[in-house]
């Protein structure tokens, strides 16, 4: 009965490859997010969708493209991976927009070699 689930948990790939991370939530929430946690554990928002509509798009390279096929899913596709993309990526969701409790998935650790 996982609330916010991400796959894969670990992703090891080479520079230049394209990869995707999938996220699904079964909480019935209408807002979903992608966060990036760097090696110093700093968390920063990348994207946010509300009912499949993009509402937050931070200063993120356009190699990163989110896709929300429905309000329960938010996937992240990354093109031409670079060493600096290595991080832990967290999906999250909330109900009723940003001013409500945030629930995180377990994270995807991406390592680019």
């Amino acid at each position, binding site marked *: 009965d996982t609330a916010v689930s991400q796959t894969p948990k670990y992703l090891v790939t080479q520079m230049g490859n394209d990869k995707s991370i999938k996220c699904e939530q079964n909480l019935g929430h209408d807002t979903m997010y992608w966060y990036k946690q760097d090696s110093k554990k*700093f968390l920063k928002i990348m994207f*946010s969708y509300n009912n499949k509509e993009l509402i937050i798009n931070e200063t993120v390279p356009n190699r990163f493209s989110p896709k929300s096929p429905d309000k329960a899913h938010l996937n992240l596709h990354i093109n031409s991976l670079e060493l600096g993309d290595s991080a832990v990526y967290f999906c999250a969701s909330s109900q009723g927009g*940003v*001013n409500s409790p945030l629930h*995180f998935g377990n*994270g995807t*650790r991406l390592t680019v070699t």
Partner: protein
Amino acid sequence: GIQVEQSPPDLILQEGANSTLRCNFSDSVNNLQWFHQNPWGQLINLFYIPSGTKQNGRLSATTVATERYSLLYISSSQTTDSGVYFCAVITGGGNKLTFGTGTQLKVEL
């Protein structure tokens, strides 16, 4: 943008001890949340507390929005409390949750 500072950055406790973690922010907020990231990397929402006081078991939190700070109290700490504690805020009219730098807590036997 808003600055969110947490103190102390690191804390070591003996099991059973109490502690207070602090979160200071540089602007007025209408959303403040506390999270625990356990040693396995999972991020758990502890409190949604833009103002006032809440309690959940051995944990409680107080936000004094007018003075721009929030406190997280951990009583009778246990080894399972180890991990990083983050506060995160949204300023009035904003739409992005800004995270603090975290407090790394280790509870020892």
